[in-house]
């Protein structure tokens, strides 16, 4: 088995300006934040970010890394609206391609299956086609019960140049294990991507994976992974059940930093600039 271990910096070194990057997790849950922080430290720019969005999206927007966000929502869960993302949108700093949550799933699935689109009712009648004129429909070749040939939305494959996700455990070859109750869409993000990176709380010998949880918890196979980062606490401040809950106090401070123009600069000086991940974790434990 290949040893695919690498650092956050090595992951970011494989990314390039203008890439479309998919980020796993959901809202403020199990986000690959150690890699997100490293992107914030890098000179990368003009990224298109695809995410069931949380502070990953807000931080990357505040750090000026984002050209466009593909999103159905961006939320901190206990704080409904992501304030840095809001600021970026209301100032016109980032473009948006808005989708329904289910359309994002279908787009990723189409890319993963290498088909050009998947048909759905989702989006019909809504303003999504008005906001995204490139969204096409397809006419069913089969009659519906009422005899009409239904015209459905053709959700285009959502190809990712790279995907980053964070799970509880992995082995050095990239087999990933989700010990929490919800795998979200992490495996789909990896399958939809050209470059596929997995961070985890702990890298363990393969045999320990099925000792820690049922075989169904092995949601990520090494077939779909190019690099593995061991990042204890790497989802902080988002939750990583059952290893740790969300750091609500930290998240409140992060959210408050969007309130004044210098807030983000203060936040990034304290929590991003000049720190590597071990130094960040040491400061969090502070």
């Amino acid at each position, binding site marked *: 088995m290949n040893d695919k271990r690498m650092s956050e910096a090595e992951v970011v070194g494989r990314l390039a300006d203008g890439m479309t990057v998919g980020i796993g997790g959901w809202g403020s849950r199990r986000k690959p934040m150690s890699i997100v922080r490293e992107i914030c430290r890098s000179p990368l720019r003009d990224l298109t970010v695809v995410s069931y969005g949380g502070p990953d999206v807000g931080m990357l927007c505040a750090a000026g890394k984002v050209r466009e966000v593909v*999103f159905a929502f961006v939320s901190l869960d206990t704080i409904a609206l992501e304030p840095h*993302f809001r600021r970026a949108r*209301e100032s016109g700093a980032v473009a948006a391609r808005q989708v329904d949550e*289910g359309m994002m*799933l279908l787009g990723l699935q189409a890319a993963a299956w290498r088909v050009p689109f998947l048909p759905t009712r*989702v989006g*019909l009648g809504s303003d999504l086609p008005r*906001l995204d004129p490139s969204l096409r429909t397809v006419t069913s070749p089969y009659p519906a019960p009422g005899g009409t040939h239904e*015209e459905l939305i053709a959700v285009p494959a959502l190809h990712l140049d790279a995907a980053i996700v964070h799970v509880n455990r992995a082995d050095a070859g990239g087999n990933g294990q989700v010990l929490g109750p919800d795998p979200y*869409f992490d495996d789909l993000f990896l399958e939809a991507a050209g470059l596929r990176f997995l961070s985890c709380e702990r890298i363990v010998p393969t045999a320990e994976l099925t000792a820690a949880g049922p075989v169904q918890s092995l949601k990520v196979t090494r077939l779909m992974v190019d690099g593995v980062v061991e990042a204890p606490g790497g989802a902080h401040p988002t939750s990583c059940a059952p290893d740790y809950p969300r750091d609500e106090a930290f998240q409140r401070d992060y959210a408050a930093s969007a309130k004044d123009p210098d807030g983000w600069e203060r936040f990034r000086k304290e929590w991003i600039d000049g720190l590597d991940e071990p130094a960040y974790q040491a400061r969090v434990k502070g």
Partner: protein
Amino acid sequence: MTHVAQQVRRADVCAVAIADCFRGDGEILANPIGNLPVLGGRLARALHEPRLVMTDGEAHLAGEVHPLGAAPEVVEGWNPYRRMFDVLWNGRRHVMMGASQIDRYGNQNIAAIGPDPDRPARQLIGFRGAPGNTINNPTSYWVPNHGTRVFVEKVDLVCGIGYDRAAELGEVARFHDLRQVITNLAVLDFETPDHRMRLRSVHPGVTVEEVVAATGFELAIPDEVPQTRLPTPDELAAIERLDPGGLRLREVKD
């Protein structure tokens, strides 16, 4: 009756109205979003719709009717986010969403406020699952702050689709089914010939005129507008058990 009406808590009336909104649903996933809607859904399941299936707000299907803020002790199923799409695209779900704006046909906006979608005056949560919800399974809305900023002539963005847009789509929208809009003032529905929003009942202590003044479009108003029914003693006891911390009272004031 008037005397009783003055004592009843508005939040309790709302909880019961929400519970009644799930009446007759049978064995489907009742998926209310927000504290008062969840309380109403659980009240329905506890008292008159025992076959309802409900989540714990996370990846579990709760095997019992448990209080707000607690985790269920019994779990009857696994429903991570991805499986929610299997349920909702299958249609066996009745969702109750919020609405930042809603119009007379039930077109709903939760994405952004302002005329320019590229640079919104106020970025809100996003389209979330509203387009998919409304075209695939029964949908109701909960509005805790009935006013002219929410009930508008025209929504800035159509996320959840209303009856006019569904009608234009024809057969492909045959699963579209908006049920009720429940607010802190009233219960509304779409049971009119062209599915324009109708005032179904006003909560005790609220007048029809107040609802009209708080609505930015013309409502269909029957000659006789009934009062939203009062909670029964059994319902009040269940509400107390399911919301011992009084979260509902923070959401809707008397």
